[in-house]
């Protein structure tokens, strides 16, 4: 869906749905996910419709993803860090076991 025209900057490896990909320090998770492949980043809890980042500035809440085990985080507001694990979400989030 997106490609980097310039990859200057420090690289990190992150994991998206089980697949390791490279990202650049300073990028948001949403940007890295868009660069890693096309398609939906979640399906809605209301109708199951596919959605992907819309505003990229923290307003629309379409880019909600599971980041390092915590669901429904705004991927456009979180910067990539080494080893980060990112998952697409299907429908409503789960409420995990006791923390």
């Amino acid at each position, binding site marked *: *869906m*997106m*490609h*980097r*025209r*310039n*990859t*200057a*900057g420090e690289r990190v490896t992150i994991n998206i749905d089980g697949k390791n990909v490279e990202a*650049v320090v*300073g*990028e*948001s998770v949403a*940007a*890295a996910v*868009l*660069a890693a492949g*096309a*398609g*939906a*980043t979640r399906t*809605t809890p*209301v*109708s199951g*419709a*596919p*959605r*992907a*980042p*819309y*505003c*990229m*500035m*923290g*307003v*629309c*809440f*379409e880019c*909600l993803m599971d980041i390092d085990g915590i669901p*429904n985080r705004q991927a456009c*507001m979180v*910067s990539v860090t080494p080893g980060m694990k990112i998952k697409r979400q299907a429908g409503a989030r789960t409420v995990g076991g006791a*923390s």
Partner: protein
Amino acid sequence: MSEQACDVVVIGAGPAGMRAAVTAANEGLSVTLIDEQTEAGGQIYRAVARVARTRPADLTLLGPEYAAGGDIVLELDAADITVLHGHTVWQISQDGTVWCSDGTKAKSITARFVIMASGAQERPVPVPGWTLPGVMTAGAAQILLKSAAMVPDGPVALYGSGPLLLLVADQLLSAGADIRVVAETTTFKDYLNAAPHLLGALPASKYLKKGIALRRHLKAAGVPIIKAPNGVSIEGTERATGLRIIGKHGQTFEAETILLQQGVVPNTQASWQLRLDHAWHAAQHYWYPTTDRFGATSLANVFIAGDGAGIFGAEAAAAAGALAGLGVAHAAGNISAAARDQKALPFIALHKKAAAIRPLLDHLFPPPAHILVPDDATIICRCEEITAGQVRDAAKLGAPGPNQLKAFLRAGMGPCQGRMCGLSVVEIMARAHGKSPAEIGAYRIRPPLKPLSLAELAAMDDDTPTP
């Protein structure tokens, strides 16, 4: 409670917030600047310091107006200001307490004065198919270009009106994107309505020249710029595949990325939550909190600077930031009214010059009717998947305004908290009841201004952060 105190809390590190913080600090006030992003610049100067450091050649692509933001970031770095990046403000109380969280633990900061510089958001553009993956705002594409040097793969189509539409098209073209079409909603009537404001815009003629140059450049590169006065619909099931122009000779343009833009509107979540006085902008169809030239609001201890108080653009926002900083310095007793007014003169002049273009733009690029009051089947609340038709039905049922509507339909109750549907709901209800938007009113905004986790809230009084 882990509470801090300071003279001024500034919210938002865009041009207005940065300049307000620097100005207040220079007048001897202790300042805390809270910003949601991880780096200063706001949306307009997004990542400007990092771009200058890691890929300076991109400054040419993004233009001198963008590069100029770097100077304000340098001023901010040099000033004696506590900057909290990556902190989200989720409540502001009328007494000047600001609650924020870094994602692990909520905390409060008490301030004698609050300067809100929360800027603007792009107007949501509800057209059929706008929720499909591949559809985003033109501003989103620009943020990707600035912050991640990213360019859309495959064919791109842009739709809407306004300065940002052509600017983003041109920047993406220069960055190698395959732009298939720019579809504009501006009509001949809009030109007629705008014509009386042309003379007044002359002090800001550089913006006019830039607009003409962008159009010429796109056309020279073979990008079709077409009229779409009746709107568009987006084709696709699992993701966007094309942009269809509605009308007798409507064509469909293949596109994997579709960028929407119908101007920007003030971010009023916090100003509504504070129950400040607001007014309705008739030409551009948005709410703005009413302020004086120093950004003073209907609450004595709350000031607003920049596009959050009405859309005037980045240069005007920086000037407004300086004015708000001076206004607060005077209200705090640090400078006399005479000193404030003296120091304000150059910023008032700058603001006036930069703002001169606005009446022309406001009338040339009004949001069209098909965006303000979409067809029944079009989704207006993306979170709860509520259509314009459902809003009309609720109005028929007697819902007098947005708040009862919310109770009936859950519109505005999802995670975006009404940011995407708020203006649409007002317009549709106003039309349904035969009233003006100002009579209909707005969603009542309550904390949290942005969602925060139960654990962050539960940990508020603790001294140990929760994981």
